Structures are given as structure tokens and as C-alpha cells.
């Protein structure tokens, strides 16, 4: 029993350290490790996704739940986060401020309001994949389909008609880590970033979870062994 416990103690940090290691977004087929049972976020992908959000999406979509200080959680230093805040806002900004909320006139997109993106990835089953398909789903209107005025055909959007013009071109940003930009790459990166924005504590939750579950499994076995031993001594 003691050997078992020792093994468990050794195994728990090992297992927990495997969690971020297997995190790598793949494009074909699109796969988001954070959506699997033990996967986590790849911070490089999240940072690239933030760049796409900041360059493309932020001109219309707010991200009200995030503060500039939250960027430290995805690997930026306080100075870098401060620089990002200063670039995004004309007025003086502190790390405690929320992300800048863009002003969109109500008539801009045929009356459709760009939604806040804070929890978008949590609002659908497998939300990152939904966002990925929406961003890559723009296509020529199929024959026999009449679009509403000011709408675009998008096979990834329920109903197929969306008021948002195709946001990604495939060369909107230049990645600092040398990853080649393409439309699917940008879409996957920004989907991963929005998954993180909707559930920033996922990595911590799963790391605590693996430890808690291993501990409870051994406590369970110990309790069962104790119970059997106690009951075997009844007269």
C-alpha cells in the first residue's frame, strides 16, 4: 500500500505536467486541445489569436470581461501589456482598465449589432470549432439562394446568412514567431484565443483536478481496505 501511495505522489505532478505538453492546435482536421478531457491552451497560439483579435476583430467587437492585466496570464509581461493598452487607447490607460469597447454605429451592418466576444466560445457545444467554421465558412452564394440585403453567405453560421463581412483575408497580421499566415491559421488562432477568453481558468482547473482525482482514488482504496479489515474482525 505504501508503495502504491508513493507511486501516486510521484505520478501526480508528472501527469499534470503532461497536460500543457500535448496542447497543439492542428488545422486538418481542425482540432482544439482545450476541448478534450485533459488538454490545455498552447500559449503561443493564444498570443497569435490575440494579435488577430486586436488587429481585426477589435474594431467592431468588444471583449468586456477582460482587463489589460489579464494579458499577463497568456505570457505577456506587464510592460508589454501596458504597451498594448497604450496602443489601443488614445487616452492614458492602466492595466486595470477593461479592453477598449469599440463604437459601432447602429446602421453599420444592416442593423446587426456585433456581439461581445467574452463568452462566445462557451455559448455553443465545442465553441472554438463553431467559431473556426464560421470564420472559414464564407463562400459564394449557392444557386437558388437569395440573400437579405447587406448579408453574406456563410456555411458555418446557422441559417447561412450573416451580416458580418468576411473579416479575415489570410494576410491580416505578421506573426512574430514565424508561423505562416493563412486564413485557416488565423481563424484557428483567434478561435483558441476566444476559447481562452471564455474560460481562462481551464488549465488551473484541470491541473488541480488531476491531483484531486488521483488523491481521491487512493483515499478510496485505502478506505475500502480499512473497512474490509475492520469488518473482518467482528465476532
Amino acid at each position: 500500500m505504501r508503495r502504491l501511495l508513493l507511486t501516486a505522489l510521484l505520478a501526480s505532478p508528472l501527469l499534470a505536467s503532461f497536460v500543457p505538453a500535448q496542447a497543439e492546435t492542428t488545422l486538418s482536421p481542425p482540432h482544439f486541445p482545450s476541448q478534450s478531457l485533459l488538454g490545455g491552451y498552447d500559449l503561443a497560439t493564444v498570443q497569435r489569436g490575440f494579435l488577430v483579435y486586436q488587429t481585426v476583430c477589435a474594431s467592431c467587437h468588444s471583449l468586456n470581461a477582460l482587463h489589460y492585466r489579464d494579458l499577463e496570464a497568456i505570457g505577456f509581461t506587464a510592460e508589454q501589456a501596458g504597451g498594448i493598452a497604450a496602443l489601443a487607447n488614445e487616452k492614458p490607460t492602466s492595466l486595470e482598465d477593461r479592453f477598449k469597447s469599440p463604437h459601432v454605429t447602429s446602421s453599420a451592418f444592416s442593423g446587426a449589432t456585433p456581439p461581445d466576444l467574452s463568452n462566445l466560445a462557451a455559448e455553443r457545444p465545442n465553441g472554438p470549432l463553431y467559431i473556426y467554421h464560421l470564420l472559414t465558412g464564407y463562400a459564394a452564394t449557392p444557386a437558388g439562394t437569395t440573400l437579405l440585403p447587406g448579408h453574406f453567405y456563410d456555411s458555418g453560421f446557422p441559417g447561412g446568412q450573416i451580416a458580418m463581412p468576411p473579416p479575415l483575408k489570410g494576410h491580416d497580421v505578421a506573426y512574430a514567431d514565424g508561423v505562416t499566415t493563412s486564413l485557416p491559421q488565423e481563424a484557428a488562432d483567434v478561435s483558441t484565443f476566444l476559447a481562452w477568453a471564455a474560460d481562462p481558468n481551464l488549465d488551473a482547473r484541470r491541473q488541480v483536478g488531476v491531483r484531486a482525482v488521483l488523491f481521491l482514488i487512493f483515499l478510496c482504496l485505502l478506505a475500502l481496505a480499512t473497512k474490509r479489515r475492520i469488518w473482518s474482525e467482528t465476532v
Partner: protein
Amino acid sequence: MDIEAQKAWSDRGWPDLAVWRARAETPSLAREQPYLDTLPALITGTLLVLAASGLVLAVYYNPWAPYASVQFIKREVNSGWLIQSFHQSGTTMLFGAVYLLLFRGILLRLYKGSGEFVWLGTVALASVLLLTGWLGYMLSGGAVAGASLRQATLSAETWPGLPGLLASWFFGGPHGPGTLARLAVLHAVLGVAVFALVLLLRTARKAMLPAPGAHPVTFHPYYTAQYFVAFTIFALIFALFAFFAPHFGDNPLNAAPANPLIMPINPTPPWFLAPLSAIRVVLPGDAGGVIAVLAMLGLLFALPWLDRSSAPAHRSGFLYRLLVVVLALDVIALGFAAACRPSVTAVILQIVFALWYFFHFLVLTPLVTALEAK
């Protein structure tokens, strides 16, 4: 002071201690009681976890900005995400245990042989918890909760007479900014008041303990060891939900904020309310839905008298047990039918499953128990 002097000192000031010690040390319990007899204790433990985590949530919750304050708890409060997921997964564990307790009570006919009070207490507990669970879901401020609350408050406004007065008093009128402040108080009060029911149920269960038999055992260490095993298994399942599936059985659309101008495309309730939500379709109108839910719970209350057999508890025929298993599958199917996208097929399935529920209790139970008693 030696240990004997300490005992005398504490027994003089607090006589209950001596009673409890004597009870734990007297061999008075039957051997080999099943693990599932620990369910009421596990339910009590879960209620304590929910009360403790609920207290932390209540400190930061702002019913005037419900969605924003839940976001604040999950993102800004230290370990708030953990406390929130304990509260949500605790609810899942609580209703899992309550539904299992009800199922076991029906299967083994535990409501017979002067077990009626335990059974009535269990059904009352389940009913109050379902109401408390619905109120708690409303507090999330999500789109699905908002739609459910609007529907409930607006239809309550149209009820005539006493039910309308009661509903008006409960909700304080149509859905408005102050509604959730009221529901937050009711959720907390019911969540604490439910402990009174737990105590009542405990008293009723103690009167129903099985005969100790030839070789009785003491509570400690024999049953404390057994309770500890049950507790660790329960805690393990709880940890799996809390850390790996904190949103189990919840409609993802509820992650969006409530907006009175947007109706969610598929406003399905959390899993523990799904069977009740589905059974509403058997009677037309909002009032019909309320009557159907009340009838669903009322049949459980009436079960000791719907069972026409006079055989004692733990004795039931094969056909009866088979039908109870079918009933459990029927209730699960009701839940799944409620979670489907709204369609004609889903509504027809809901009606079929709901009618089977009523058919089971009103026709099959009296018939089969009377036949098997012969």
C-alpha cells in the same frame, strides 16, 4: 484532569454527549446494511457544501447586475471559479443522489411497512430542492434562465384567484430589475430551510432501522468505516464533475447574458429540471403545465396508497421491478426529449413518455401490486 474526570465534567455540562457516546459504543445495529443506505447522509453533506459555497457566492452576487456579477466571481474573485464550479457540480451531485434515492425507494417499496413517513419526507425534500434548484438557476442571469423567468412571471400574472395571488407574492409581479433580488433571498432561505426537512427525515429514518439481529455491531468503527468508503467514492465523482465537467447538463446558450429582446433558439433547462420541463406538454396552456408538474410530484406522494399490496418493504415481484426500471428509463427519456431542439417529433415523444409516467402510477402500479400480492 484525567480522561474519566473529563468525561464526568463534560457529561455534567452537556448530557447529550454521554447519550451520543453511549449510542456509538452500544452494539445495536444490524450487520451488512447496504452502501446505498448512506445516501441521505451524502445528501446532507452535499447540502452543507452547497450552503458553504453559496455563502461565498452570495457575498459577491449582485442581483441588479446578475450576469456581470457571476462573471466577476468567475474571473476576478480569488478562486471564485472554483467555488462557483463547486456550487454548480454540487447541484449535479445533489440531484443525482436525490433521484437515486427516489428510484431505490420505489424499486424496493421502502414506502411500505410504516415507511410512509420516510417516503413522504423524501418526496417533500425532493420537491423543495427542485424549486430551490430552479431559483438558483434563475440567478445565473443567463439567456436560458432569463427566458424561463420571463415566461414564469408573465404567465403567473394571468392566473386568477388564490394561485395568482400566491404567484404575485412570490415573484413580486412581472419580470423586472428587482425580481432576482427577491429570488436570491428565496433561494437562500429555502436552501437553509431544507435542513429542517433533512432533520425530520433523519428522525423518521431512525424509527425505521432494521432489527439488530443476533450479532449486532456498534456504529463506530464498523459503520463509520462504511460511511467513509461511501464518502470517498461520492467525493471522487464530485471531483470529476467539478474539475472536468463543471457545466455538465447545462445548456451552453445560458453562457450568454439574458436579453429580453432575444429568445434563445433552444431554451432547454439544466438536466435536473428536464423531466419536469418535458411533462408540462401533456396539459395545454401555462396553467396546465403547472398542474402537470404538481401531478407528477403528487403521484410520488400518493405512491404508498397506490401500491395495493400489503407485503412489507424490500419484497416486490419481478414484473413490478421491471416496470420500475422502465419508469426510470422513461423519466430519463423525458429529460432527453426536453433537451432536443423543438420539433413535432420531440413534442410527440414528450407526450408519449409523460403519458407513460402517469399510466405507470395510476394503472400499472395498483394493478401489478394487487396481482402479485395474490
